[in-house]
């Protein structure tokens, strides 16, 4: 290729640059959507994007945090990797919360950050930050491209690492000179990852052991986590559970992996889980954990966690097995493969009549409950009504706090990949941009974003994107003029000293929405809830709905901090 000598500012026209090579590599990975925000160090990349416009849909968010949470929502609901572009320095550091969130919740993301030119890396140049240093502990893997020739291989490896095994975020840091460099011929794309071979197929011996344990168990229980969803193993899980009539509970992130309304389902377990589910964990003699990581919000005090149970744990990440809970039957495998292997076994199970009776009794005696006065809007009843109006079929994204727990409790999910929430990191500001990503990934689906008034204000600037793309996302604000969960803990554990948890100067959310050109509604009275919801969900476009709910309402039942799963408080009215 004959190339004129070009200075840095020369406009690239026909030649291929590193940036073009990046775009081509993304096309090769079947990327169709990018969430991002331009800046100095990624100008060459955005220029290549402009020149190859037809290849991608680029969603311009209004803050990098919006990009990454949108990518998380997209990845969670579509199963495809979420791709993010950001510039160097502040662009990259604005992504940190989202990268950590994706790491904690195992979401496949590939994040491309610009970097200052190689020649000035390490000199504290303008908009330089040590992206490699900062992102090392919060990524599954990270790369800084040193030579242009590495780029196609690194992009390929990044997508491979992000999406296989236990998924996770991968950062690729690209110095500006690399994306500007003129390409010379073909580069080798062969992946070289000798230290990375996730185990997908289960050890048959362990499956036999698990089958034997099921045969012997008098009080078996299945715990399903997000691993079932990542493996797309809901059908196999359903078959397994129903063949042997095994009672099942899920984690917060495992909601939807098994139909919540099925008779075998005990609902969610954990800090704000159902009493029946937590008691089942306490009393079971065999706990089959499929793709959950025994997080502390699930287990409560480890000392009292499943004290009578033999624990079996199916997980694709061997490091999760035995990390928090002693495990007798470890199965390192993809959940789908493990379930398939289990389904091939003939298991003679004893009669579990009494066990089912106990669980059924707990379900009937100790259902979820809440106060139902008429003078204010009950947040729990509001979620139930959203469930009714949307027939339980919406994709639901939540922020973090009380409304998140109420959504988990009352928006019963019967289908997988429709629940988007920040579990491990508990990131306020996550829910609304995640809904944008979910809606872009599934344009035909109804996407409801249930948020609190506090969390929504952390990322509400993304209303611009909703307007820009006319995304019919329905934002339901459970507005209690407080940081509800903080207020609840102060109420219960800090003698009602509401330190900095009451929001006295909220915006008018209707006017806020309208200022972005989006329909806003406000509901103050319980009797208007039903008709407003009908109206919102039949409206063909985005809506921000401000529901004034009771501030004093607390989330129950609850495992208090340091307590065991059998010591729930607020179990009955």
């Amino acid at each position: 290729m004959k190339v004129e000598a070009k200075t840095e500012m020369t406009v690239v026209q026909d030649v291929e640059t590193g940036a073009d090579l990046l775009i081509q590599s993304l096309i090769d990975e079947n990327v169709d959507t990018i969430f991002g925000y331009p800046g100095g160090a990624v100008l060459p990349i955005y220029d290549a994007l402009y020149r190859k416009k037809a290849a991608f849909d680029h969603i311009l968010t209004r803050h990098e945090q919006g990009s990454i949470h949108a990518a998380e929502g997209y990845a969670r609901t579509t199963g495809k990797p979420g791709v993010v572009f950001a510039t160097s320095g502040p662009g990259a550091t604005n992504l940190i919360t989202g990268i950590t969130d994706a790491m904690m919740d195992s979401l496949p993301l590939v994040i491309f950050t610009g970097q200052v030119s190689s020649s000035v890396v390490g000199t504290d140049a303008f908009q330089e930050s040590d992206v490699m240093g900062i992102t090392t502990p919060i990524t599954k893997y990270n790369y800084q491209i040193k030579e242009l020739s590495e780029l196609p291989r690194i992009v390929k490896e990044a997508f491979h690492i992000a999406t296989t095994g236990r998924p996770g975020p991968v950062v690729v840091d690209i110095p500006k000179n690399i994306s500007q460099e003129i390409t010379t011929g073909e580069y080798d794309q062969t992946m070289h990852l000798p230290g990375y071979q996730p185990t997908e197929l289960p050890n048959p011996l362990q499956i036999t052991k698990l089958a034997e344990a099921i045969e012997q168990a008098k009080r078996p229980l299945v715990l399903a986590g997000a691993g079932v969803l990542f493996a797309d193993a809901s059908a196999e899980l359903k078959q397994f559970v129903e063949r042997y009539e095994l009672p099942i509970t899920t984690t917060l992130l495992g909601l939807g992996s098994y139909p919540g309304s099925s008779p075998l389902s005990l609902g969610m377990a954990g800090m704000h889980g159902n009493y029946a589910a937590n008691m089942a964990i306490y009393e079971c003699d065999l706990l089959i954990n499929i793709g959950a990581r025994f997080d502390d919000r699930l287990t409560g005090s480890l000392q009292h966690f499943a004290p009578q149970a033999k624990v079996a744990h199916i997980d694709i990440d061997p490091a999760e097995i035995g990390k928090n809970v002693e495990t007798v039957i470890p199965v390192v495998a993809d959940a789908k493969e493990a379930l398939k292997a289990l389904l091939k076994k003939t298991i003679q199970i004893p009669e579990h009549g009494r066990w089912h009776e106990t669980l059924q009794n707990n379900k009937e005696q100790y259902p979820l409950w809440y106060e139902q006065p008429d003078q204010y809007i009950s947040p729990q009843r509001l979620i139930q009504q959203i469930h009714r109006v949307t027939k339980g079929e919406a994709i639901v994204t939540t922020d973090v706090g009380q409304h998140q727990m109420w959504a988990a409790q009352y928006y019963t999910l019967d289908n997988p990949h429709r629940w988007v929430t920040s579990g491990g990191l508990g990131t306020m500001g996550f829910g609304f941009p995640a809904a944008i990503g979910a809606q872009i990934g599934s344009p035909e689906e109804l996407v409801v974003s249930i948020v609190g008034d506090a969390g929504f204000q952390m990322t509400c600037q993304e209303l611009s994107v909703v307007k820009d793309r006319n995304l019919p996302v329905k934002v339901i604000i459970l507005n209690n003029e407080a940081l509800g969960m903080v207020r609840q803990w102060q109420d219960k554990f800090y003698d009602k000293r509401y330190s900095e948890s009451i929001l006295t100067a909220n915006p008018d959310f209707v006017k806020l929405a309208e200022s972005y050109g989006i329909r806003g509604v406000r509901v103050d009275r319980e009797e208007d809830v039903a008709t407003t919801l009908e109206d919102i969900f039949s409206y063909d476009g985005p809506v921000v709905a401000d529901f004034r709910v009771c501030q004093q309402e607390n989330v129950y039942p609850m495992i208090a901090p340091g307590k065991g799963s059998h010591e729930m408080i607020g179990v009955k009215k």
Partner: protein
Amino acid sequence: MKRIITATVQNRSGVLNRITGMLNKRQFNIESITVGASETEGVSKMTFVVEVNDDQKLEQLTKQLNKQIDVLKVSDITDQAIVARELALVKVVGSGQLRSEIQGIISPFRASIIDVSKDNLTIQVTGKPEKVDALIALLRPYGIKELARTGVIAFLRGQQPSQVTEINSVFPM
């Protein structure tokens, strides 16, 4: 309990940072880490000496190391026949008479004096950490001006003792 763990790793930039960061985050108590070239180009060998309280923590350590993308192999070699060596450089105060006295102390340790100046001398000692500890303790009264240790490097001996099957073992392996 003290364990010696070795790992072979891909020699990529940031690998040491990623591993030490993980160990720090997960609160593993590291006594020493060494890293250097191995017999294969592009592959480095790391040796960790760690203090762990129980088997569960030890298992977590090896699993978390194995989980790293750049880590090729992890072995806990503590209970096997191994060769383990550390090198230390010790600068002690010593002139005149003291020099020959120090020479007498270090010779059973097969240590050697590698630098001498007017008021001090530098000793090089190689061996297991306990031996290095012992020599340092003996030299301390003379006044140690400077001390540097490399940390342990170790691998398996060429020949391992044959496996002994316990006669009363219920589950012979």
